[in-house]
């Protein structure tokens, strides 16, 4: 019974957050298969050792933090440096269109890209992003401001 309850809770969490985590992982890792691995690892960690969450926002922030850490670790191990437009991804599962603005977002350094995506694309608040990234709200604002500047420069160049 207890296991059924946990599995049911997991299914709820999966249905709520899987796509969001996947989108973010694809944006960071630029590989759908690696992104799937990162999402799997994040949910496995959820099943293994998720704490008692205060509320759904705390749960979301925790999952995001775990996923971003997974992606950072995978990126470093891969030593990925090249940027690929999303159209170059041909693995099964990526059927997304892209736009010049989105391509420009993907060129941003990782720490600015995460904040820009979470704020402008996932529509999270500053406080939510701060909790997810373990940053102060002012640090999030600074990264957002700098990320926007870099995005504008990239769009003007293109």
């Amino acid at each position, binding site marked *: 019974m207890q296991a059924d309850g946990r*599995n049911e809770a*997991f*299914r709820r969490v*999966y249905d709520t957050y*899987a*796509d969001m985590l*996947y*989108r973010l992982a*694809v*944006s960071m890792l630029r590989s759908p298969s690696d992104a*799937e691995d990162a*999402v*799997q690892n994040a*949910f*496995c*960690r959820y*099943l*293994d*050792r998720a*704490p008692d969450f205060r509320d759904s926002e705390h749960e979301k922030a*925790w999952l995001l*933090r775990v996923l971003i*850490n997974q992606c*950072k*670790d995978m*990126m*470093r*191990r891969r030593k990925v440096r090249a940027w690929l437009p999303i159209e170059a991804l041909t693995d*099964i*599962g*990526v*059927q*997304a*269109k*892209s*736009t010049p*603005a*989105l391509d420009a*977002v993907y060129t941003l350094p990782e720490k600015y890209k995460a904040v820009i*995506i979470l704020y*402008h*694309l996932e529509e999270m608040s500053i406080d939510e992003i701060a909790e997810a990234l*373990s940053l102060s709200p002012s640090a999030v604002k600074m990264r957002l401001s700098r990320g*926007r500047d870099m*995005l504008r420069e990239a769009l003007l160049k293109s």
Partner: protein
Amino acid sequence: MLDEESVKAYKSIRLERDLRADILNRHASRQSSRAFGSQKILRPLVALCSLILICTAVLAGALNTRTGIYTGNTRLGDSSRTAVTETVRYTDPRMRFHLFEISATDDLTSAANDCVPLRVKLGTTAFVEISEGALLLPDGSGNYTYAGFAGEITNGDTLYWSLTDCETLSPLTARFTDADGNLLGTVTLTYVQSDNGWCISGTLSEK
């Protein structure tokens, strides 16, 4: 900032494959391994831990240890690596750094030859986030790989602070958290040159 078409394009990225079964299978498999392992070794492990605790209590007074926050310089020595060994323990029993013990017989990959062992003894699995510098973790097959920005450490793991950037005096700043994200301790280290040769200077703080 971003047009509606871009937002729409981003949100069209979706998982095409249902990962739930894979995730649950992996979790079940890990639970079984842990249960089997724990049943097999639990009783002798309890006995061994009790013995170790008693011995540790006896030896504690004989070791060169400091409790609390470490701040200071430790001479690294020259290329023969005759380093001073420091052990720093904290009031939180889960967090203990055993620093700078370098052995000429350490089996390191070529990538890790210029490293300072930062042996971390923890009572729990921890997560390290590195904001400056690079740490190397064992990859389970006798080699060492960059931990990158983040990595997981289990009790007894040895981390190596990579000094391949020592010409630029690349510092190390890292924080250790437990699995719930609670901060266990922080490390800041700098590799500096003095009249006595290269030294490591920095702080380890419990929280």
